[in-house]
């Protein structure tokens, strides 16, 4: 038994206070929502067709029947059928991926955990590729249907595998990585051996994420699942806090560890599956956003969850705007842009918080 000598024995700088930086939650959320609405309004106007914010407003009012349609059918169509659903889907996906990241990182006590660690996105890719390339269940299953089934199947595989291997949190992460590698290899194999050049390009674009085919039905589905997930997860906010010192500590703080894990993993996996089957695999949002949001809110999940959601929404709205305009008329896959922005941001955040490790 060694004896640490004094209270002043550590070499870390003193009094790294985190309390002062924490603003009140309502103010943060209100501000965040205003920024989000403004971002959506502005993002919709950006693009090859010349549209301004008042056009967006007119379209909105006329569509809900509060004003006479004054815009041309074309401009109205661009706003209502193309830009608005796309921008809203970006917001919903950004929010969803951020929420999944927050929950996974806390639950698995792993700062590297994100929705993709559970193998969900690679499962979705494999499912989609099977439908597109091999025509499995074609006619019955759409590409997104295949993606959804693939996501759920791979999640089940990860959970079964991790349970067989001992059920600890690091086993979940390791199983996720293993399944992810396996399914990625499978996807590449199928694409390389069976697809023609055109299909390969389509699949690749989808694997890297794309919001180009956004529709109102996808916006609605994703938004409903997001709202449900957010509600469930924020109900478990204190339990997530209690995981800070591990599962045993959470248990002695009254958390039913097993039930909490099953419930939260299921809802986040479901949300990831729904998102990935709509927009493909958009990486780094779930990984980076929670770390950034924690700087704003502090570690409490009652604040962290909603603030991450809003921040993720704003981020992806702008990322998608960049993705579709920077190389006009060509689109950059949104996953490429999130990675290009995400990696330096991630390094910066880790660098700033290095004193805490």
């Amino acid at each position, binding site marked *: 038994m060694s004896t640490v000598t004094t209270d002043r024995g550590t070499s870390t700088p003193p009094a790294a206070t985190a309390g002062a930086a924490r603003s009140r939650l309502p103010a943060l959320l209100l501000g965040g929502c205003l920024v989000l609405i403004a971002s959506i309004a502005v993002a919709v106007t950006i693009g090859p067709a010349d549209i301004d914010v008042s056009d967006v407003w007119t379209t909105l009012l006329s569509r809900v029947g509060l004003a006479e349609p004054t815009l041309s059918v074309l401009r109205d169509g661009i706003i209502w059928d193309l830009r608005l659903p796309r921008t809203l889907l970006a917001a919903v996906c950004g929010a969803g991926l951020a929420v999944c990241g927050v929950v996974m990182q*806390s639950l698995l006590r792993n700062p590297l955990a994100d929705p993709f660690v559970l193998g969900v996105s690679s499962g979705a890719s494999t499912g989609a590729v099977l439908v597109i390339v091999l025509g499995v269940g074609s006619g019955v299953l759409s590409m997104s249907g295949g993606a959804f089934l693939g996501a759920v199947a791979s999640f089940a595989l990860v959970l079964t595998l991790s349970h067989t291997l001992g059920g600890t949190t690091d086993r979940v992460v390791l199983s996720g990585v293993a399944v992810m590698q396996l399914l990625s290899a499978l996807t590449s194999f199928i694409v390389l051996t069976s697809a023609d050049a055109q299909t390969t390009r389509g699949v690749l674009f989808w694997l890297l994420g794309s919001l180009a085919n956004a529709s109102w039905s996808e916006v609605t589905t994703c938004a409903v699942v997001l709202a449900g997930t957010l509600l469930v997860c924020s109900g478990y906010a204190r339990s997530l806090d209690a995981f800070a010192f591990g599962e045993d500590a959470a248990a002695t703080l009254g958390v039913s560890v097993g039930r909490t894990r099953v419930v939260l993993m299921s809802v986040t996996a479901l949300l990831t599956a729904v998102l990935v089957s709509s927009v493909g695999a958009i990486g780094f949002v779930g990984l980076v956003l929670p770390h950034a949001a924690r700087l704003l809110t502090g570690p409490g999940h009652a604040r962290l969850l909603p603030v991450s959601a809003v921040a993720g929404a704003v981020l992806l709205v702008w990322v998608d705007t960049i993705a579709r305009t920077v190389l006009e008329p060509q689109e950059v896959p949104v996953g490429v842009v999130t990675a290009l922005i995400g990696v330096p941001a991630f390094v910066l955040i880790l660098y700033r918080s290095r004193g805490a490790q």
Partner: protein
Amino acid sequence: MTAAESDPDVGLAATGVSRSLGGGLVLDGVSVAPADGSTVGVLGPNGSGKSTLLRVLAGVLKPSAGRVTVDGQDLSDVARRTLAQRVAVVEQHSDTQIPLTVRDVVGLGRVPHRRAWLASSATDEAAIHEALEQTGMTTKASQRWQTLSGGERQRVQIARALAQRPRELLLDEPTNHLDVQHQFELLDLLSSLPVTSVIALHDLNLAAMYCDEIVLLDQGAVVAAGSSADVLTEDLILQVYNVKAEVTTSPEGHPHVRFLRN
């Protein structure tokens, strides 16, 4: 067990508890029933089952035989949350990667008392404030957990446990990382609290000074239990620790153990 007022139907009690881990029997028919408000020391060599006993008492491990009860009710029939409102645990090691302040950590003690979606109540705030005061951590409330020394971390975890407002407090070698002064401060604090404490300890003399009752474990079984004078005898120390010792009575009236070279 020995203390006159102890009664297995009041407070936390283990009756004939066994537990196997990895094929071996780690606890073998252990019974403990701490008297209300007393400080019970659990002693024994490494691997004698001290930590396992605490984990079984905390409900983190289920006993393979025997029962653990709280006010006579089997632990498996008590909801985790209800249990956490009255039994608090301080683990031997605790660490986190999350940048928490001292106050955040102490606030975790209110988790079992809080309802989903609701903000913290005045009782929560009062409990956190009081726990920080009791452990002398008020001035460090906004300091990062990661910047604290081992001794401070231990005190913060005890403050967190006190914020749970427990009736029973289970501590696994809380003096492990502390220098002598802080060991005394900590045990002074624990024995002054109006809670029943069960403390796994290594230091026989600290146990003799602070514990109302001592349970001596060896290879998962209770070798002796009772007052420090009953348990800390030269014969039992030789038998359990395989070390010769001379036991005298200190001026304060408790036994004093002096180990001898063979």
